[in-house]
């Protein structure tokens, strides 16, 4: 079992203790293969993520980054171990509870953007708001604010194919923030972007973490983006091989 726990909060007096937003304990995910074989995607990972941090999970392809993020976000079920989100055990949640979790508390960003091609930028951003049955006024106001926040206020009516890759990812980020989640999970958000645009996107995420008070866990294999993170966790073969804080990273 590997552990990467930022547990300094434990030493604070109780009135000052802030519980971590994500607590992962002994997380294992095996995928059965044809012929009776098993692929160990994650091998007993434990970690915690403090509120308001930008945590980067890095590693090579196949190291288990996406698996870890999917398990944290409740998109997948672990073979063993638990994931606690704000003290609630995600792995024990029912499908209905998971849907509520995704609707209200977690925002996802993907490498392929995940925009619906037939919807405009504004309509893409309003999807989560429609899923939570937000009022029309609230929906329109929130969409306008978010698109302006990501710098696409003027392109609200454009369809994804009319936007550049970076713009599409910004729309995806705006969408992920629609319901004011407390956690952003981004899986290779810069994977399909050139390095300059990738950096712009990471900077935007960094800024949102600061301005919106959201926690972000970002998987990336691009080492040049790590300097924007508060903390970097490196995975290899499904295990945490390093865990560095911002200070360490800066040094």
């Amino acid at each position, binding site marked *: 079992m590997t552990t990467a726990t930022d547990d300094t909060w434990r030493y604070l007096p109780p009135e000052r203790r802030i519980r971590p937003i994500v607590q992962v304990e002994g997380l294992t995910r095996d995928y059965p293969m044809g012929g009776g074989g098993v692929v160990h995607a994650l091998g007993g990972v434990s970690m915690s993520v403090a509120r308001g941090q930008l945590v980067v999970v890095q590693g090579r392809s196949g190291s288990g980054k996406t698996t870890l993020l999917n398990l944290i976000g409740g998109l997948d079920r672990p073979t063993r171990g638990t994931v606690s989100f704000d003290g609630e055990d995600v792995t024990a949640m029912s499908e209905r509870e998971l849907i509520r979790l*995704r609707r209200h508390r977690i925002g996802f960003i993907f490498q*392929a953007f995940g925009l*619906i091609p*037939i919807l405009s930028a504004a309509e893409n951003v309003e999807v989560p708001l429609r*899923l*939570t049955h937000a009022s*029309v006024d609230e929906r329109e106001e929130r969409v306008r604010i978010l698109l302006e926040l990501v710098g696409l206020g003027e392109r609200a009516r454009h369809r*994804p194919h009319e936007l550049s890759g970076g713009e599409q990812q910004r729309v995806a980020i705006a*969408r992920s923030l629609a319901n004011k989640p407390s956690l952003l999970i981004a899986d290779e958000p810069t994977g399909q972007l050139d390095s300059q645009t990738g950096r712009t996107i990471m900077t935007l995420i960094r800024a949102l973490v600061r301005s919106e008070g959201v926690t972000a866990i970002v998987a990336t294999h691009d080492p040049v983006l790590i300097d924007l993170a508060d903390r970097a966790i490196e995975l290899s073969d499904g295990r945490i091989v390093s865990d560095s804080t911002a200070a360490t990273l800066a040094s």
Partner: protein
Amino acid sequence: MAGLTTTRRRPSPLAAPAGVALFLRRLRAERLLALVLAVVVLVTALLFAAVPRFYNSIADEGARHAIRDADTPVANVQMLEQRLQLTGQSTYSADEAAAHGAELQSDLPPALSNLFSSTDYVAQSAEFSIARQPGAAEWPQYFIRMRYQSALPDHVRIVDGRLPEGTDETVRRAAIDESGKQIEVEVPVVEVAVATDALDTAKMRVGDRLEGTLSQDSQVFIGGLVRTVEASDRVVAEIVGSFEPKVADEPYWYGDVLPLRANVTGSLDRPMIHVVGLMADRGLDRLAGRESVAFEYRWQFFVDPERVDAGSLDAVNAAVKKVRADYPSFVNRFSDTTALRTGLDTVFRQFEAQRRLTEAMLAVVAIGLLAVAMLVIGLIGALIADRRRAALVLQRGRGASSWQILGAQAVEGLLLTVPAVAAGAAVALLVPGRASVLTPLLAVGIAIGVTVLLVAIALPVARGRLGQLERGDQPVRAVSVRRLVFEALAVVLAVGGVYLIRRRGLGGEAGSTGFDPFLAAVPVLAGLATGLVVLRLYPFPIRFLAWLASLGRGFVAVFALRRVGRQPGASNLPLLVLLLTVAVGVFSSVLLTTIERGQAATAWQQIGAPYRAQVTFAELPKDLDLAAVPGVEAAAPAYLARGVTFDMQGSDNALTLDAVDAPALASVTTGTPADPHLPPGLLDEPSDQNNGSDQAPVPAIVSTHAATGPRDMQQGDRFELLVEQTWISFVVVDVRDVMPGIVPGTQFVVTSLEQLQAAYRIAPLPVTTVFIRAPASAEPALRRALEGIVPETHLTSQAAALGELQGSPLIAGVAAGFRVSLIVAALYSALAVIVALILTAAARARDLAFLRTLGLGRGQGLGVLVVEQVPAVLVAVLSGIGLGIAVAFLIAPGLDLRAFTGASTPAVLRIDWNAVSVIGLTVVGVVALAVAATAVASRRRNLGSALRVGE
């Protein structure tokens, strides 16, 4: 890369072998899809290769049925000669008659004579008046004809006595010679057998000797000779036996009841009873030798229905035409030439009308089904092209020219479709029926059509811009002008075709024998045009609905409607398939309903009630009480007389008088299509002592053209009828073209029996007809009861008349063809929906997977899938229903359904909304099942892998 796209190379000669190798590799990789495509092509080829055989089969059976169903004199060939030695002709002895018959047959064209299975002949003498027994009443008077029928012993059963034999016996009888001197003459005795029914009616017995003298009336009638009776005009007919026919209605008797029962003519108070005595061949030889006795010889050639096939009817028709030119038609007057009596050409003409109608209706549905099949094949081809898109783009990127890609696609198409089509055509050989030249043509056409379709589907990838092709998410582009022009052309062609059909009919110009495939295809062209218009227009209301939905808070409806409204392409082909399926079904339903209801209406029109009992030259008891017969609910007596003299202001005519017990008839027919809705005037009680006079004319319904002359009858017109030798005045209370129970086209007067009786005060009017209301189960008891009262009663029923109309194998074939088409089209529809869903499944799964990360529930995902299908299905079903009905109405003037309904007036199209609803719901059900199957299959898809699509 862009530079490579500009390279245009002609296909190299090696493209085909390379294509074969590529095909085999792809076949391994895409075996499921290839298998589905091959099966669909095979089934389509099987269907369309089998259709001509199936059609030939029902056409042959239809032709045979037409022969079997026709009356014997109509369905066979009879040659007649009338001979009388006095006029210089020789009469034939039995052997000579047989030889002459063989000679006549050998002169007939082989196309006709090859249809004959047997022949026989009849020789019948002129009629002899039977001398009255001393002390007997003046009436009835009795008459006898002597007849020889070949092969008689095989067709009768002796009830009493024996069959006649030849005898040389003569008897001496007193006579007066030309100078007025009394002499004795030798009168030949001829042995005869008489039917038991005839003996009963004529009150004769076996052993009677009937003294016959040549009837002058008969001699004038048959021999054309008037002279005083001579010794040679006399004969003694000795009844040596009585017989019954083994099968009274077998063709052997040729529809001639005279040898089987006595014929009563004259009037009720002055009856004349005519019987026929059947003699032996030696009897014929003896009588034929007498110079004063005219004989009529009939050689009868029996057509074997099993030797008839619809494919050789043209030759048979030509042969009948030639025979008609060679021999005059038989007329009831003496002629010294050989005459012909047959209705074969009429039978075949009616059959041809039915066949053309069958051909036209089946062709419309078959072409519709073919269009559905090709659309489904196109969908599967599109799915294959979609699966290979990346590979083809890669090939383009590596320098493959458009021609090479299209060439490889063509080779693949041929390699896949030719074996499937060949297999389908081979299996079609198992379908019973005559081979048709259309079978291989259709098979080849399908192979070529499918290959062209598969090539056309690859066209966008083969000729598109490479840079754009490499982009995964293709934007929804505006429709090209070229495509709009093409679609507009299809619409214009359809409109033109419909116009032509309304003008010309499906059978082409009047008198033509075939039908025009282009015009038969026009309904389908109209279907495609409607589909194109619908496809162009339906996104607009959907977008409006999406906008309306967007004003609310929900997600499912707005998202699904936006998808359909903004990305309609994916649902285009299944929508067309569904639309055409519904249209084919509804079109078939409208025609079948119209035919079924038309036949029912015709049957009601023919009988005039559920049952009709009728007697000729007899009468039914006036107090006939059928209430005791189990099941009989009501009965209405009537006096029916034909050839009644009509007079209106000097315009005289002969028409049918039908005097019915009006209140009773209302009870019999209420609630049935035969209800004549008699006007109040006929239902009134007779109140005036002067009924039937000018002051109190009897109210009557008359046919429009009852009076000769230019003017139609009108309400208030007055006229007179000669009823039982008495003039009675009538007033017209209603004018109609047809009346239930009276043959359409007949000029008639319908009145109240009670009022007519009040006007005719001389004697009770005879009841000749009874209309009866009873269920089908009552028929045996009813028949027994009526035969017990008056044995000659002829009972007919609406159900039996309907059964005869429905008995045609052609209409049964059309109905079967329609049903099979609908089932196959429904299966094609299911396949189309499934393929379309699979085609869009990857994009849908990807979209839904991303939406699930946003909190979309599984139920909402299913909701999106369902709501996406609803507009297309609704549009398809509603448009299909409208199209099916519209096409039926548009081409109705060209489809003369009278060939099947048997009605005298063109059929009015009927819609069975229940059947239409069932068709619509069936298609909805098929789509629901397809969606459910796809939804279940897509649940297995891993969310994680879906999220990685595009990475």
